[in-house]
């Protein structure tokens, strides 16, 4: 089956290491920073309206009430200690405090020689799990690893075909049964196949599910148990995929998935839109979990490692 690509993927990409990310995040920057440059024009007084504008910027980025208040409290304290004297300094201080929250979370996924190193990918419906798996598989394959994927979303119509299509494009093996099959059984098969073929990495796709549904979360726990049975150290990574468009519910998603299957890393997709993914700051502050990747498009190259400085620059560009 031939697949065409969305028009934006066929256009040529700007050179440079972060050029594409910058381009993808351009939309994000535009609306966010227009406000900021206004904010910083001239020698603005440090009055209520300045803080109100900063509050607006943070809240509109899905940073959330609590974290926004926390950030602004820190800034106002510095102001009252006369440590910040103008709008520009306030802005820099805000950048700095966000950076200090997210920087500890930019820890890359290290692939240990586990044979197979098992990555279990989880998340609510439609966030981009399968697409992220395809992008990740390509990345890891390009790094020289033998990658295999397991199609344990046996629920959604054509979820298996979707993963198979990606695997075909990437030329990597996929282990699958049929829609309606027992997901844990598929994972069991996949583990055996990965061992038999001496794959370095097995990435397990799972069905999207609302974290509030106990029965479906139990299914996920069962998958985890099957993986752990084959290797007590596995899964080596439980990657929770979050949609940048998601608001405060991401906190609940992480809490529930974390409790059920022990999330060890995060991926934030769809940062190529205007959603700012500010919830990451709240998540970082709450859990300190590593943020591994960001998704910046639908193509297989549109995955980036999360780099804190870059993220903060994209949100609040250096003045």
């Amino acid at each position: 089956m031939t697949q065409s690509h969305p028009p934006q993927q066929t256009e040529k990409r700007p050179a440079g290491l972060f050029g594409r990310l910058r381009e993808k995040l351009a939309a994000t920057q535009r609306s966010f920073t227009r406000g900021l440059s206004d904010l910083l024009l001239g020698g603005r007084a440090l009055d209520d309206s300045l803080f109100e504008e900063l509050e607006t910027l943070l809240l509109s980025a899905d940073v959330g009430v609590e974290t926004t208040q926390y950030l602004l409290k820190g800034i106002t304290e510095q102001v009252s200690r006369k440590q910040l004297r103008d709008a520009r300094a306030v802005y820099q201080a805000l950048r700095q405090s966000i950076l200090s929250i997210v920087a500890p979370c930019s820890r890359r996924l290290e692939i240990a020689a586990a044979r197979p190193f098992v990555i279990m990918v989880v998340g609510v419906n439609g966030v981009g799990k399968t697409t992220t798996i395809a992008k990740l598989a390509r990345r890891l394959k390009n790094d020289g690893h033998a990658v295999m994927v397991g199609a344990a979303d046996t629920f959604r119509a054509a979820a298996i075909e979707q993963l198979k299509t990606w695997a075909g494009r990437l030329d990597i093996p996929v282990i699958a049964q049929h829609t309606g099959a027992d997901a844990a059984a598929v994972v069991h098969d996949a583990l055996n196949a990965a061992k038999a073929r001496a794959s370095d990495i097995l990435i397990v796709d799972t069905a999207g599910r609302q974290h509030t549904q106990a029965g479906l979360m139990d299914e996920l726990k069962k998958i985890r148990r099957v993986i752990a049975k084959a290797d007590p150290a596995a899964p080596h990574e439980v990657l929770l995929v979050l949609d940048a468009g998601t608001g405060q519910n991401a906190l609940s998603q992480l809490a529930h998935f974390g409790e059920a299957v022990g999330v060890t890393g995060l991926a934030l997709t769809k940062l190529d839109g205007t959603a700012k993914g500010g919830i990451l700051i709240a998540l970082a502050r709450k859990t300190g979990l590593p943020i591994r990747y960001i998704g910046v498009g639908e193509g297989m190259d549109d995955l980036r490692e999360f780099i804190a400085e870059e993220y903060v620059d994209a949100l609040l560009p250096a003045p």
Partner: protein
Amino acid sequence: MFDNLSQRLQATLKRLRGEGRLTEENTREALREVRMALLEADVALPVVKDFIEHVRAKAAGQDVLASLTPGQALVKVVNDELVALMGAANERLNLAVRPPAVILVAGLQGSGKTTTVAKLARFLQEREKKSVMVASADVYRPAAIDQLQKLAATIGAEFFPSRTDQQPENIARHAVDEARKRVMDVLILDTAGRLHVDEAMMREIRAVHAAIEPVETLFVVDSMTGQDAVNTAKAFDAALPLTGVILTKTDGDARGGAALSIRQVTGKPIKFLGVGEKTSALEAFHPERVAARILGMGDVLGLVEEAARAADKEKAQEFARKLAKGKGFDLEDFRDQMAQMEKMGGVANLMGKLPGMGEAPDAAKAQLGDRQVKQLVAIINSMTPQERRFPDTIRGSRKRRIAAGSGTQVQDVNRLLKQFDQMQKMMKRMGKGGLQKLLRDVKGRLPGLPG
């Protein structure tokens, strides 16, 4: 952290007790809490600002119902306004065109479009007895066409095949032709997810729309969406003449503030809610449910109700004081008593539970059925205060006037006076402190009533 509006407001509400009117002053702090609650529910900031202004204007100068504190009255205004802004319940799809009625769905990636197409098809087939064809113009996402085909098969809808090497606009045109040829009532066209900032993709869907002129163009949006909802809704609404919105994944625990954002930005009705992954998981939209969820309620309405109950309790206590002081039990008390019984689960339900009532004459019991209560209240309302206080003064011509005023017969008035007489006797028997004990007992027997 505060979980919901009612928790947030508890503290603020306490300080507002005992004021008879909502003012700028006494609502300022409470409105700040409302603002926080809406933001935590993911209502977009500009929408929150508008809403708060709206409520402020609406609330200012409003009298506080006797049964509520000002804070609770404010919650009521907030809830009522939110419900009103959310639009009408149960909006239907417009299919009143020469068949096939074409429905186009659009939205961001992963919002639930394909699943929703299948749900709508099933809904129209089963509930409206329509013949439905579905087609996919998603030539990008791997296996998207396959996904729709499989879903169509499970619900027995016609499927118009398409290929990824075709132009979406052509797929759309051909699907409409085919649906017309096959005399289908409805054609639903699925499209690829797209970002509103992707100009090429937005141009594409405009072309699709122009080619098939759908009678319904539905924006499918994820209820977990955060602040960005305003941006996407604005852009899709500008690009396409949307006719409605479908909010998906409401089976999770997202507060769904995006619903208000989208509604405010587009002004378009929310027509359905997606409540699960199955093709049957589609529900009509009800504004009060979504509003309650955004406010983190159930609890808030409960709070208001509780307040109303508390007010009744005060009345009951005052009444008990009256009795204790040896002052008479008058018709006004009798009316309040009836109204309160009705609230506490209906008179019939209470009869058996009321200690003392077991001793009441059978005739009185029979006459105190639920249906009679409204009539009793109407009759008493038609009396002058003087008459209520001194029922003995109610004679011939007064009886006729009261009957006419309440739309009843003179014998109904007579019956009421007789019942009242019996009640009064019973009250006297119970004497000092008896009523409070009686109320306590009743509450103890009714689940869900605060003690």
